[in-house]
């Protein structure tokens, strides 16, 4: 075995596509350059923001400057950490629960038409209910602990994953299905060798949406009834006009969402290498 396809002898007309990667990684797509550019963009926005606040003498309780936000991040680090933890738990709990249920139901849909026709409209109906309206109902039903928050985070992630997963499991090529038939593959083998891997890129598209959505769900749920968590902190900081803390909380929430998004993208690159999305934020 030679070092790779590019190093092996290639034959005339067919060799053209044998090394697609080599010629592409030129200046424009250089990752270092891309990172630098996005950092510069962020810095520019922060500088402009600071300048506007100073020039127009905006009062502290209306809006915080980037420097004040940074100060709050440093001084209130402990408060932020204590309140980030429950939100992280709820987000991950909801993310896992919502996606696992969605995947299982999607698999059921693809293999059983009756199940699909009974449950799909129901799932769509649940989706049409506004999440802000369901939240109090779930708090009444499930109490004041983690349960309603996880339920809401799960609910908000459930639908995109269900829809994408159903599409993904059905996205198998007609000729590939014929191939499986000619090989006398069982339903399970068709699933294991064809449907499941075919669906993975679709699943990961959904998971990237779900990663930020589940955090949103957890925060909204904390608004309804909670005395801890980032959602609670946002409300408390707003009522007390502790604007820098409010901004710092937003920054933490946004960092969490980015981290989750990043983990999903890394997993995707590892598990679905045949379809890299280049999903760098």
């Amino acid at each position, binding site marked *: 075995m030679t070092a790779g396809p590019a190093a*092996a002898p290639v034959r*005339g007309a067919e060799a053209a596509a*044998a*090394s697609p990667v080599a010629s592409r990684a030129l200046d424009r797509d250089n990752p270092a350059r891309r990172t630098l550019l996005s950092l510069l963009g962020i810095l520019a926005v922060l500088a402009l923001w600071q300048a506007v606040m100073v020039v127009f003498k905006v009062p502290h309780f209306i809006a915080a400057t980037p420097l004040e936000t940074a100060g709050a991040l440093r001084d209130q680090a402990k408060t932020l950490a204590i309140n980030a933890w429950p939100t992280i738990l709820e987000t991950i709990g909801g993310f896992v629960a919502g996606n696992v249920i969605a995947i299982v139901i999607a698999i059921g849909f693809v293999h059983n038409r009756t199940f699909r026709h009974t449950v799909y409209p129901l799932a769509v109906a649940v989706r049409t209910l506004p999440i802000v309206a369901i939240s109090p109902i779930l708090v009444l039903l499930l109490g004041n602990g983690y349960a309603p928050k996880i339920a809401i985070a799960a609910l908000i992630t459930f639908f995109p994953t269900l829809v994408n997963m159903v599409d993904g499991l059905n996205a198998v090529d007609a*000729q590939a299905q014929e191939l499986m038939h*000619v090989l006398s593959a*069982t339903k399970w083998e068709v699933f294991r*060798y064809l449907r499941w*891997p075919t669906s993975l890129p679709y699943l990961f598209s959904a998971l990237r949406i779900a990663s930020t959505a589940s955090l949103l769900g957890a925060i909204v749920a904390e608004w309804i009834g909670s005395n801890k968590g980032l959602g609670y902190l946002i409300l408390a900081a707003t009522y007390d006009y502790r604007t820098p803390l409010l901004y710092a909380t937003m920054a933490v929430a946004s960092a969490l969402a980015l981290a989750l998004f990043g983990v999903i993208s890394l997993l995707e690159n590892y598990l679905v290498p045949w379809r890299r999305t280049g999903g760098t934020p």
Partner: protein
Amino acid sequence: MSVMVDAPAIELGDVGMSFALPDGVLEVLRGITLTVRQGEFVSLLGPSGCGKSTLLRVIADILPPTQGHAAVLGASPAEARRTRALGMVFQQPVLLPWLSAEENVALPLRIGGWGAHHTPSASPEALLRLVGLEGFNRAHPRQLSGGMQQRVAIARALVSDPKVLLMDEPFGALDAITRDRLNEELLRIWGQVRRTVVFVTHSIAEAVYLSMRVVVMSPRPARIRKIVEIDLPYPRQPKMKDTPEFTRYSAELRAALEDAS
């Protein structure tokens, strides 16, 4: 295995095929009767969309005929499929993008645990060598050109030692140069493995160059218009394409096709 050793590779008796559509019935095949001997290379030639691929799918037990009967090696197509007497190469390579070239070739051995109960005459590695892809075992489909992918598909079709190889316009999506090259390769491979090949094409030159017999089909509903024996010796050489015989066969087939349309 109930497939018979001395039976014809394929027997079609008055095969007809109709599809029920919302606004009526679409008749695709009518009265196809054909016998293919073992070891024979037969092409089905006809205009696009005439039903030659449908006929191939009847033989492969993908579509049951609505009329007549089909037999592969003396058994039903379903039996032939279950015993892996049939291998199929599609218009597209249909490689699984998450598997390497060698894993793609080995897929038929994994399905149904075939590889655990049978010893194939050639390993996936040997087959990749046979189709001229030595050293590409670990390459993934996206790293291979269209022609190379189709070579992998041919190796995959051969891995469970099928007696009959069904090829559905396998080189139709490739450029002319690659296509000519793969025609050469296919003849070389066929010369080594000597399976029965049923080859669907709409290229007259390809049909003449490859086949022992060419079956000319009419537009839909497809019927057999003419069967032409190509009496050119194997191994065939590219320079044969410039001989008067080759030109005569091409003209004969073209006339039959025009007659048909």
